[in-house]
């Protein structure tokens, strides 16, 4: 026999009263864990989607029209290529990679197409066109996992994104979009004359359904030469970490490139931020509810429990229990309530998240271990704090009033 056994035996004896408070704390933890699981998985899913879109930030000359994000570089004004070096040499965090481009609309046999000069080793491997053409690993993972330790470090780098889409592109080699080859009746290995210069189509790119289908990609240096330009570009595509975007990456870029227009896939980022904010608010509201409802319920239960056990408390004091032992009995009971509520709440909340996640947010939800710690801290914290006043009252009960028999 010890005080712990006394607590457990009493809990088992008065299961019904215990159950009400237990359900209050359990439901609160279930909701918090479920909402947090879904919102975290949703953030992660949006981050992966953003990464899979390839570049999510475009740096363009100031006067560029950006009605169409994906075609904004075509015939845009020009800017110096050394803007890329300015970003590289800055200390801005969240820039994963950059791909400078020079594009111009040209005509071949009366067919209008876009000639795009690229630096092969800078092309972003996660862009759909390189993914579908087999230039890069289709299993490429998101760089912007919000929980990634990498993203939290000052030296942010994702090694997987260091793999570039195209290792090399010869001076007179080109990659042709699917529309280009079909309109001009070309095929892989064919020659094509662009601005008086003969190129060889080394690869026909599969259809992507984007403006890239109407492009011919050549080396940036070659494009600059045949278009009669110097070391200029008209776009820098940047792979920016989505969480860094919401934390002010765009503003930082504008600071170092003040005479440019910097844009992003705004609606996607905003939707993500909005969804995340809604989920965060939802979690906060439930946290407040659980603190109030759970805390009041447990406090009320413990208070009634003290009332009900006055004689028992008096007897224990008479036998030789100290007020500290009485505190232990009631705080210990709150602790057990919190521990069981936290564990069961985490398990059921994770299960609820796994079931509801695909329906509510369209994302696959897996249990998140860190939420277990949160569930325990919240459940145990509320239970112990709510038990404190009743325990204090029990420890300070006047034995004279309790033990007066007549």
């Amino acid at each position: 026999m010890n005080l712990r056994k006394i607590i457990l035996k009493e809990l088992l004896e008065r299961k019904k009263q215990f159950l009400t408070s237990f359900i209050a704390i359990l439901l609160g933890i279930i909701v918090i864990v479920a909402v947090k699981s879904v919102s975290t998985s949703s953030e992660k899913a949006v981050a992966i989607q953003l990464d899979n879109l390839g570049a999510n930030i475009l740096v363009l000359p100031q006067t560029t029209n950006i009605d169409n994000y994906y075609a904004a570089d075509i015939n845009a004004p020009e800017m110096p290529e050394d803007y890329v070096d300015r970003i590289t040499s800055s200390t801005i965090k969240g820039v994963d990679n950059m791909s400078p481009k020079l594009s111009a609309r040209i005509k071949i046999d009366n067919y209008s197409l876009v000639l795009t000069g690229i630096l092969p080793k800078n092309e972003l491997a996660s862009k759909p066109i390189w993914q579908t053409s087999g230039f890069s690993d289709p299993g490429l993972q998101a760089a912007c996992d919000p929980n990634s330790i990498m993203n939290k470090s000052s030296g942010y780098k994702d090694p997987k994104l260091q793999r570039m889409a195209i290792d090399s592109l010869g001076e007179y080699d080109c990659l042709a979009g699917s529309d280009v080859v079909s309109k001009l009746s070309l095929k892989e290995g064919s020659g094509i004359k662009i601005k008086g210069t003969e190129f060889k189509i080394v690869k026909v790119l599969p259809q992507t359904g984007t403006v890239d289908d109407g492009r011919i990609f050549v080396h940036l240096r070659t494009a600059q030469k045949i278009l009669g330009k110097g070391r200029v570009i008209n776009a820098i595509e940047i792979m920016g970490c989505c969480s860094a975007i919401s934390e002010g990456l765009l503003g930082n870029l504008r600071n170092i490139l003040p005479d440019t227009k910097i844009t992003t896939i705004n609606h996607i980022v905003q939707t993500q931020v909005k969804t995340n904010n809604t989920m965060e608010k939802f979690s906060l509201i439930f946290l407040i509810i659980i603190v109030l409802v759970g805390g009041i319920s447990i406090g009320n239960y413990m208070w009634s429990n003290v009332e009900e056990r006055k004689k028992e408390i008096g007897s224990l004091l008479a036998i030789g229990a100290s007020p500290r032992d009485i505190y232990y009995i009631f705080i210990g009971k709150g602790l057990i309530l919190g521990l069981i509520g936290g564990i069961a709440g985490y398990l059921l909340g994770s299960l609820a998240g796994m079931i509801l996640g695909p329906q509510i947010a369209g994302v696959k939800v897996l249990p998140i271990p860190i939420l277990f710690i949160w569930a325990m801290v919240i459940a145990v914290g509320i239970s112990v704090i709510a038990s404190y006043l009743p325990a204090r009252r029990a420890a300070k009960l006047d034995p004279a009033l309790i033990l007066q028999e007549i």
Partner: protein
Amino acid sequence: MIKIENLSKIYNSKRDAVVALSEVSLSIKNGEFVSIVGPSGSGKTTLLLCMGGLIHPYRGKVTIGEDSIYDLDVKKRAIFRLRNLGFVFQTFNLIPYLTALENVQIPLALAGISDGHQSGKATELLEKMGLADRLNHKPRELSIGQQQRVAIARALANEPKIILADEPTGNLDPDMTRETVSYLKLLNQTGITVVMVTHNPGAAEYSQRTLRLVEGKLRE
């Protein structure tokens, strides 16, 4: 020896102050069996609880052996009770969700005795009280008399020098009353000091000395 000097206790309620004990002084020798009698509300239980270190008096001093118990801090007073005193109540105050054996084990557990020793000692005490076949019964499964014997066994668990009994026969029939008081007498004969609050003159006859308390004042 229990020595009480000028003990006063006042209960303050919202409306007025009630004097429960007024300048009570008395001495009880080691090994004595003393009854405290008096009408309801005369302060008998308050005096007993003051002796047991459970109520801080308004004024006065309670000395048991060498210790002035209200000069001890709360924790030391609890340890003092645990080692030296055994309480028996009218309504037994057994813990309802524990078995007879577990109830007797509580004072042993509070004294830090290991589980194995607790069990052995508690079993031995309950066997002496004729409850060998009721060890694992909860209080509600025991008769009134059996509950009182469990309460006495619990009071004896830590081999106290003093037993403080508050109306131990108040809920018992005449046969059980005789049996219980006889048992207290038997304990007294082993050298244990017994102080019993009662309003049963028959029970008081078993004691060596009877103190009468009226309106908080002692009339020996």
